[in-house]
């Protein structure tokens, strides 16, 4: 029986063994985070919710392939969610049938928004996750505009490095460098949180 202190990785292991209750607990912890990302990328409630359901269903089906050495469960879920949402975003562009009402997120639309998300197993983890989210948002805000532009086009726009180079009229090498510099700056607060957790 899953409990509140069970780690995400342990839940995914249970899912791989066919324990649907573990899926429920993982969903309770991460549904809002996944929905936030999907909604931010799609701007439409129905599509965002479909992407959320697809994300957790994919997580259930592929739980056995989760590899902790490649990142935390939250990273894995975010990657799936972003991928599912971007698929929908691209399909929508192909169909060119944006609906009349384009409901947009309440943020400033640049990705560098201050806020927090605290999905976690218990209040202490919740507080840590919330603080971590705030620190990342702050690090995003501090990025130079040209670095932020590159990672936003990649992360939120789903553009490839070549497309980013075309869009920004930058050489590929510059795109690579800016992406790396930006992610390294975001990586720093994450490392600090890891150290603090030890």
């Amino acid at each position, binding site marked *: 029986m899953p409990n509140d202190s069970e780690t995400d990785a342990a839940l995914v292991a249970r899912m791989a063994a066919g324990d649907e209750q573990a899926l429920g607990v993982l969903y309770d912890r991460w*549904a809002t985070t996944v929905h936030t990302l999907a909604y931010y990328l799609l701007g439409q409630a129905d599509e965002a919710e479909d992407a959320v359901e697809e994300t957790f269903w994919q997580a259930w089906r592929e739980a056995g392939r989760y590899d902790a050495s490649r990142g935390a469960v939250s990273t894995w879920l975010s990657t799936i969610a972003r991928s599912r949402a971007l698929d929908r975003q691209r399909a929508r562009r192909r169909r060119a049938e944006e609906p009349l009402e384009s409901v947009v997120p*309440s943020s400033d639309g*640049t990705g560098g*928004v201050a806020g*927090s998300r605290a999905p976690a197993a218990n209040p202490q983890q919740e507080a840590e996750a919330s603080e971590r989210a705030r620190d990342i948002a702050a690090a995003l805000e501090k990025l130079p505009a040209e670095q932020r532009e590159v990672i936003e086009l990649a992360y939120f726009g789903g553009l*490839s490095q070549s497309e980013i180079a075309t869009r920004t009229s930058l050489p590929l090498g510059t795109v690579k460098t800016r992406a790396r510099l930006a992610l390294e700056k*975001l990586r720093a607060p994450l490392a600090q949180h890891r150290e603090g957790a030890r």
Partner: protein
Amino acid sequence: MSDPLGHDVVREMLALDALDALTPEERAALDRHLTTCAECTGDLATLREAAAAIGTSLPPRPMPTEREAAMRARLLARAIDDRAGVTPIRRKSAPQAGASTRPAPARPTVARWLAAAAFIIAIGAIAYDISLRATIQRLSVARAELRDSTSALQRRLADQQAILDGLTAPGVRVMDAGATNARQPYGRMFWDQPTNRWTFVAHNLPAAAPGHTYQLWLVTRDQRKVSAGTFAPTASGSAIVRATYALAPDSLAAIAVTNEPAGGSAQPTTTPILVGPSAKSD
């Protein structure tokens, strides 16, 4: 396995891989290197974590509670179905009547007939149990779908009401945005200041160029350009864009609509096709 790229080249590509911005060919070449380079593998894991953190740092936007619960029930019902389909349900047989450690008699006895009957009854009970569980799951899914449908209708109604409120509330300020070219598209922004809701209505907009979209901006007095979202007009050139954004009453300088690459831009990159003056009280 050959490594056509080499360590230094791959290292430069890792951040873009973490952002999923490589082509399949580039990814395949990178993967070949990763199989032999622990340093790059570790580096990529932490860069992926950093990229994913972008998504987890956004201001939370939970689903409506009922819809979240309905989705949970649906997912669990699907998972149960899935598990049942992939792994046959295994149950222990019911204890056989008369079972003992003694050797079985050579010929059928009353006890053996009773045991066989008990076994058949047990199989029947298991089959009935499976059937009953399947029925319960179907009903659970149907109930979730019904809640879904009701919630969708309620949400649509709430959306319509929100539009109405955004246009008619006492605190609404209205600003018009006219065209800067001869095509004369026209837009009007309704800013419900007490609730920070923005409703933008536009007409006569031409279709955005392929690969492009319209983007609505709030321009503040200190020249910040805040995106209020991307949108595409209908075939007749109309659009409604709704957003929620807190802005001090006297800090808005203008509204503008620009043509941006699909997905929108962090800042306007083209001359506005619609631009509106500072808000005036209605």
